[in-house]
């Protein structure tokens, strides 16, 4: 791993439930995600990959250990401080698009900036919208867009604020393979050409193959690192875990 780390966790533990029903979703996980890289967190269902992302993004709290975005330590921040941090320095792309049905595509894209009271950088906005091919769709509401278009709106929303890091949670999970390829291609472009940092959670080997680096989780621990993953390598690694 090269370059300064944009996001990192150290000795993070997250436990759900209690007694017999207790599940260690994260069991002393330590990881660094370098800036200007596209990292994929992979693993079978229940491996803790979504929990890890939620903790990284300040959506959920950890039971012990430290979480860091840039130079900011997340553990110990108040809800309001976490909210501000998410607003100003983090972008999200979710599996189920999660657009507000009442807002147009443009309003959805600018929602985070509006919440922060920030003035959008029109040039950057134009660049992102053009890169995603959304310009003719800006006035449409989510209900009038296809799944792929909705996910591209979500990508634009994540990127338009120039966040320190973009978290993508199964971004292709609800898309057909062609739309999925478009979205993944755009995420890779945003890293290579726009200099963004993307952390993606996926269980899809093909999606993982777009990343620069892969981290394999199993039972709440880091099972393997896969530099420059290919679909076959990921599949093999996943199958190895399952065996």
């Amino acid at each position, binding site marked *: 791993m090269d370059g300064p780390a944009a996001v990192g966790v150290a000795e993070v533990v997250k436990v759900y439930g209690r007694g017999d029903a207790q599940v260690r979703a994260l069991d002393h996980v330590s990881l660094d995600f370098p800036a200007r890289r596209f990292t994929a967190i992979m693993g079978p269902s229940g491996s803790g990959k979504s929990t890890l992302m939620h903790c990284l993004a300040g959506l959920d709290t950890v039971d012990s250990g430290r979480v860091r975005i840039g130079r900011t330590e997340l553990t110990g921040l108040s809800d309001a401080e976490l909210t501000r941090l*998410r607003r100003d320095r983090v972008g999200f792309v979710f599996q189920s698009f999660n657009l507000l*049905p*009442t807002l147009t595509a443009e309003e959805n894209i600018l929602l985070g900036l509006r919440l922060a009271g920030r003035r959008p950088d029109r040039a950057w906005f134009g660049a992102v919208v053009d890169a995603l091919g959304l310009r003719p769709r800006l006035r449409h509401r989510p209900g009038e867009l296809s799944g792929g278009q909705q996910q591209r709106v979500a990508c634009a929303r994540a990127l338009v604020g120039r966040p320190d890091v973009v978290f993508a949670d199964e971004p292709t999970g609800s898309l057909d393979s062609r739309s999925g390829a478009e979205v993944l291609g755009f995420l890779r472009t945003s890293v290579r050409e726009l200099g963004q940092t993307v952390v993606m959670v996926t269980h899809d080997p093909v999606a993982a193959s777009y990343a620069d680096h892969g981290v394999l989780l199993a039972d709440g621990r880091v099972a393997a690192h896969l530099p420059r993953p290919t679909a076959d390598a990921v599949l093999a690694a996943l199958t190895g875990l399952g065996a």
Partner: protein
Amino acid sequence: MLRTVIAGLRARPLRLLLSAVAIALGVSFVAGALVLADAVGAGLRAAVAFQTRGVDASISTTRGGPALDEAVLAKVRRVPGVAAAEGRATASAPLRDAAGHPQEAAATSLPADPQLRPFDLAEGRFPRDANEIAMERHTAAAYPLGQSVTVFDRNGHQHSYTLVGTFSRPTEAGIGSAQLVLLPEALRQLAAGTGFSEIVVRATPGVGQSQLLDDLTRAVGGRGTTVQTGRDAAAQLLREAAPDSASLTKFFTAFAVLAMVVAAMVITNSFTILVTQRARELALLRCVGAGKRQVFAGVLAEAVAVGAVASVAGLFGGLGVAAALQAIAGALSGHEAAVYLPLTARTALAALAVGVLVTALAAALPAWAATRVAPVEALRTPLEGKSARAGWPRAVAAIVLALVGVGAAVLALHVEVEHGAVLAVVAMVALLGAVLAVGPLVAGPVVRALGLVCAPVLGLPAKLAALNADRNPKRTAASAAALTIGLAVVSLVTTVVSGVEAGRSSGLDQQLAAEFTVTSVVADQPLPATLADTLAAVPGVAAAAPRRSFSGDLGARGTYGMAAVRGDAVGSLLRPVVLSGRLDRLGPGELAVSRQLAKEAGLAVGDTVQGGPRNRPVPLRVVAVYDGVRVPGADLGLGLVDLGQMPAIALHGNSYDDSVLVKLAAGADQDQVRSALDGALSAAPLAQLHSLADLKDQMSAPLRSTLDLLWALTALAVLIAFAGIANTLSLSVLERTRESALLRALGLTRGGLVAALTAESVFLALLGAACGLLLGIGSAWLITQVASTDAQPVLFTLPWARLGVLLGAAVLAAPLAAVIPARRAARGSLTAGMAEQ
């Protein structure tokens, strides 16, 4: 299928609870209003039962019949089978207050037989000698036991007694019971010559009522004397007192109807949301093989079950509402007021029917719609239905209703009052319908505009609130509609009442050019004949003129309640609105008739009437037709004559309600003259002095108390409307869990989310309140225009203070309605919210 329904109910207890609360609230409102309506009758029955308790037989005489006196009582007591007999007598006995002024009161005699006393001892003891007195508990509040109490008799002489005890009755209920109790001999001293109004009899045990009645009739019966059982006497008393309570019952029943409409709206809205939210679940059931009919029946069964349980809870809640309102009204009035909670079959049926039927209907419509969509399509389409947008049939309905409303209103302004009133009601109902129909069409634009207005202050939350409220205009409009109806009714009545009040006040100013009136506290006791001259001599007084009411015998035309006044006072002190003829003075042989009398007796200016007894007819020429305001002490009755003319045409030569009108000289100081008049009145202890302002207060007092009652009831309606808004918001919050989590993930603070929901609630309340106020005030304007006449003007004045309270309460209550849903939304876990589908 039933098991699936039950499992579904169990899985979403909160949603169900919210709907159940809405149903229970609505039903308790309906039940409460109906119980109140029945309670009026129950209170009256209880008062009558108390008044006639222990009475096995009652002897009374018809008007003009033989007097019931001690001799008759002695005869009754000797009848075999009579255990006790008491003569009941009541006399006017004004109490002397601390300032020496007489206060209206009545005294009755203490029955020797404790079982025949229509009151219970509260404190101390009953009088034992003629110098002792007992008082009704609330009247006695200002007097400690042992204090001396001074009472005036008919001639203005003072009698002092020692207060030895207080007594109580379970209820006042308006059957006019006396506040003071004296021994029979003391009452005879106070009011010599007062006969018994009734002799009540208690039978010795074992004596049959028919036997007793026969024996009593043989002993004292005869022409003009009625002997009846205690139960018959009670029934008669009830009949005589019923008309008053009947109008109150009607009032509460009308309110129950309003309650039903508001309840139906809240229940429909809440259950519609509930079933719409489950459209996807229903579709899934269809996918796995449930038939259309099964799904529909399942939803309906669920609705009926929830409706039934919640309605029963609401029914008991209604009893609580009725009890609380009666307790509050009792505490405010200061009278003896018991709480009555009669639960009739009608109340139970109506409440349960509203709860169950409305719930079933509210569930059936969306469930029917849900079963008509192909299951797979329902699974795919998002929760936000396209059907939420309002269509053109609604617009057409709104336009038609609005046209009918406006048309009826315009017609109402141009026809006679009687037809105008009917048309005005038609117009109001049509306009209300138009507002309700147009609600979903305008809800969107209105909340968007509100969002734009508030956006500079509140920022994005205002925009989000507007967008959320606009997302389902039907739901938004339905939530606001309950508030619209409540506020429309209360603002309508408030405005009309204030218009009537202002109209009466200006009517009085028009009719009475005097600053003071003097009346007698004992209605049938005339004021001293010289009083008018005494008062006219007081410095600062320009003129004083006597006036009195009497039953005027107009020969073949009939007998009417009329007034007589010194002829030269007409046109100067008294100047009613003259409709035809001329009325600047009245001389002997002249008669002025009211519009009503002119119509009833077919009289016009120039006609001559033969008044007085047939053997000594008096020709009276009609010189004017007028229209007057009814006001104690300055009433014009149906006809007006010169004071000198009165004795010749008064039936039985009687007059009552004696008064003197006092006009001050220009520039005289009213307070100074008032104390001088007070001094001059010391010669007439029974005289009461009223200023014009006192009269206006007296006239508006009954209006105000009705208005207060109405406000209490409408407060309930508005409360339920807000419960409806809270309910809608709560269900919307559940529906938008994922969105809320998303907004929070994207950087909306908890405070921002709370602000958005609060703003949404305020927008809803503003929409509902504005529509309601506009509708209510508009209808009030129409009514004042239709009902106003020259003599009894109803002015269109806006009671700003009361209306401001209404609007302020609505806007302030809105954030309260949003508190619970907003907390729920803000506290939700982000990751769990995101996962929710």
